[in-house]
C-alpha cells in the first residue's frame, strides 16, 4: 500500500469528483469532499516525511518505467508544495459549506464540489509529475476547473472575469505547450530528468532559446507576474470568497513551482542566469510590479480587490527572490510561496466572514466593523501585520531572507526598495484599520453575530500558523533553504 502512496493525492479527488456530482444531499456532498481533501492532506504529509528522511520517491505509472511510461518524481521541492496545496484545500473545505450556502446558487453545490476537486487534482498533478507533457495536461485540468468555480460568483461580472481568465490562461498554457514541443523536438524525450540531461548538449541552439522564451512568457502569464497580471484582480474579486481563498493561495503558487522546476532543474541555473540573463528581466519586472500593484491596492474601494492587487505585489517579492539566483534569494522566494499562501488564504477567509454577515466586501460598508465583529476584524489586522512583515510573523522571515539576498549581491537599491514597499503594504492595510476602527458604525446598524465556528476555526488555525512559523523557522525557512540548495545544484 505504501508503495502506491504517491498516486493517492491524484486518484482520490479525481474519482471523488464525479461521485460528488451524483450526490444530491448537500451534507453528503460537502462531507465527501471534506473527507477526500483530508485524506489527501494526510497522504501529502506522509510523502513529505518520507522524502525528507529517505530522499526522492519515484513512482512509475502502471509499472511502465520512464521514459516509456510517465513517472511521478517527488523530491523536497514538490513535496513541500504538495503539502501546502493539500493543507490549504483541507482547511478551505471546512470553511466552505457555510460560506457556500450564502454565496453559491443552492442547487449547484454538487457541481461546484466536483469542479473544486478537479481543480485540486490538477494542481497536485502539476506538482507531482515528472513528465513535461503531463504538466500541461494537469495545468489545463486545474485551469478549466478554476474557470468554472470562479464563474459561479453571485455578481454577473464573475462571468466576464472567468472569460478573460480563460482567454489569457489558454494563451499561457498554449505557449507552454509550444515550449514543450520545441524541447521534445531537440531532445526526443518528455521525461524531466532525461530532458535535463539532454538539453545540456543542445543549449546553444536557437530552438532551445525560443523554447525558453515561450516557457517563461507562458508561465509568467499563469503566475500573474506584472505586467501579465490583468486577469487576476477581477477573477479574485468576483469569485465566491471560498474560491478566492483557495485559488489565491494555490494556483499562482503552483505555477511558480513549475517555473522553478523548468528553470532550475531542466534548463539549469547556469543557462537561465548566465546565458539568457533571466534576472535582467525578472528583477525589474518584479520590482515595478511590487510598487505599481501596492500603489493601486491603496486606492481600491473593495476589500477583495485590494487584497487581489496585494497578491500581485507579493508575487513580485517571490519572483524577486527567484530572480536573484542565489541560495539566499531562492530561499526567500520558496519560503514566501508558503508564507504568502498562509497569509492570503487567511485574509480572504476574513473577507468571506465579513461578506457572510454584511453581504458586501466594499470598504465603505465596513465602517465600524471593528466593534461589530471584533474577532474577525482582529484576525484581519493580524494577517495584515504578517503581510507587511512585522517581526514574529512569517512575513518577516521572507522579507529578512530577501534583504539578506539583496545585500549579498550588493544590490543596495533593491534592498531599499523592498523596505520602502513594505510601507506601501502598511498603508493599504491601514485603509481597513481606519474604516473598521476609527469610523463610527452607521446609526441603523443592527448587531451582528460572530461568524459560525466552522469558518472561524480554519481561519484561526492559519493565523496561528503564521505566528508559529514566524518564530519556529526550521520547517519553512529550513526546508526552503534545503530546497534552494538542491535546485541550484541542478536537482538529482
Amino acid at each position, binding site marked *: 500500500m505504501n508503495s502506491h502512496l504517491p498516486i493517492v493525492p491524484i486518484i482520490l479527488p479525481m474519482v471523488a469528483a464525479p461521485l460528488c456530482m451524483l450526490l444530491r444531499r448537500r451534507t453528503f456532498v460537502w462531507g465527501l469532499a471534506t473527507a477526500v481533501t483530508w485524506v489527501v492532506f494526510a497522504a501529502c504529509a506522509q510523502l513529505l516525511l518520507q522524502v525528507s528522511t529517505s530522499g526522492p520517491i519515484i513512482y512509475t505509472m502502471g509499472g511502465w518505467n520512464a521514459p516509456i511510461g510517465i513517472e511521478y518524481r517527488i523530491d523536497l521541492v514538490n513535496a513541500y508544495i504538495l503539502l501546502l496545496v493539500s493543507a490549504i484545500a483541507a482547511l478551505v473545505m471546512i470553511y466552505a459549506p457555510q460560506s457556500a450556502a450564502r454565496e453559491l446558487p443552492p442547487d449547484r453545490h454538487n457541481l461546484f464540489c466536483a469542479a473544486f476537486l478537479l481543480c485540486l487534482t490538477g494542481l497536485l498533478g502539476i506538482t507531482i509529475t515528472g513528465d513535461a507533457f503531463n504538466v500541461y495536461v494537469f495545468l*489545463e485540468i486545474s485551469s478549466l476547473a478554476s*474557470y468554472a468555480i470562479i464563474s459561479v460568483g453571485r455578481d454577473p461580472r464573475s462571468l466576464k472575469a472567468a472569460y478573460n481568465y480563460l*482567454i489569457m490562461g489558454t494563451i499561457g498554457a498554449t505557449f507552454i505547450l*509550444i515550449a514543450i514541443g520545441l524541447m521534445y523536438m531537440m531532445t526526443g524525450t*518528455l521525461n524531466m530528468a532525461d530532458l535535463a540531461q539532454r538539453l545540456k548538449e543542445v543549449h546553444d541552439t536557437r530552438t532551445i532559446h525560443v523554447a525558453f522564451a515561450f516557457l517563461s512568457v507562458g508561465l509568467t502569464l499563469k503566475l500573474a507576474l506584472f505586467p501579465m497580471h490583468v486577469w487576476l484582480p477581477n477573477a479574485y474579486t468576483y469569485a465566491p470568497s471560498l474560491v478566492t481563498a483557495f485559488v489565491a493561495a494555490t494556483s499562482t503558487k503552483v505555477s511558480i513551482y513549475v517555473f522553478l522546476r523548468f528553470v532550475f532543474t531542466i534548463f539549469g541555473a547556469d543557462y537561465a542566469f548566465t546565458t539568457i540573463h533571466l534576472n535582467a528581466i525578472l528583477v525589474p519586472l518584479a520590482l515595478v510590479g511590487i510598487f505599481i500593484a501596492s500603489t493601486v491596492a491603496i486606492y481600491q474601494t473593495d476589500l477583495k480587490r485590494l487584497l487581489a492587487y496585494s497578491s500581485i505585489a507579493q508575487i513580485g517579492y517571490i519572483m524577486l527572490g527567484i530572480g536573484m539566483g542565489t541560495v539566499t534569494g531562492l530561499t526567500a522566494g520558496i519560503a514566501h510561496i508558503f508564507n504568502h499562501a498562509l497569509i492570503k488564504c487567511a485574509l480572504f477567509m476574513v473577507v468571506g466572514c465579513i461578506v457572510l454577515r454584511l453581504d458586501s466586501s466594499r470598504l465603505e460598508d465596513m465602517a465600524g466593523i471593528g466593534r461589530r465583529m471584533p474577532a474577525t476584524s482582529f484576525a484581519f489586522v493580524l494577517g495584515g501585520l504578517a503581510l507587511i512583515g512585522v517581526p514574529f510573523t512569517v512575513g518577516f522571515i521572507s522579507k529578512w531572507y530577501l534583504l539578506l539576498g539583496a545585500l549579498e549581491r550588493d544590490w543596495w537599491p533593491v534592498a531599499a526598495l523592498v523596505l520602502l514597499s513594505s510601507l506601501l503594504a502598511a498603508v493599504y492595510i491601514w485603509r481597513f484599520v481606519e474604516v473598521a476602527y476609527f469610523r463610527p458604525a452607521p446609526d441603523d446598524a443592527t448587531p451582528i453575530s460572530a461568524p459560525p465556528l466552522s469558518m472561524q476555526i480554519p481561519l484561526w488555525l492559519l493565523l496561528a500558523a503564521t505566528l508559529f512559523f514566524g518564530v519556529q523557522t526550521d520547517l519553512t525557512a529550513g526546508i526552503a533553504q534545503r530546497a534552494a540548495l538542491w535546485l541550484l545544484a541542478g536537482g538529482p
Partner: protein
Amino acid sequence: MSDFWGLYNYWIAIFLMMVGFYNVIARGNLIKKLIGLNIFQTSVFLLYISMGKVEGGSAPIVGAGISSFSNPLPHVLILTAIVVGVATTSVGLALVVRIKEAYGTIEEDELIAQESVTQ
C-alpha cells in the same frame, strides 16, 4: 534558400498562430475571440504533428518491409491536446451564453459601456 522553403510546415504553423492570436486580441466579439483562440491552438497541433513526420517514412505500423516510420508520439500527444482544446472551447462558449443571459450582449465595447453606467 532551400532551408527557408524546406521548413514550410513551420511557416504555415506560425502564420496560423499569428492569425489566431491577432483575432484574440483585436476582435471585440466574444465568440470571435474564441474562434481566434481555437485557430491559435490548432496551429500548435500542426506544429507537433509535422514535427513527428520522418521523410520517406511510413505510418508507424509493424509490417513486412517497413524500416522507417514517422514518430507516433507527437501525434498521440496532440490527441490529448485536441481534447483539451475542445474542453476549453466548450467552457468558453458556456461562459459566453451566461454572459449573454446576464448582459444581453456579447460585444466587448457594449459590456464595458454597461459597466461604466452601473458604477
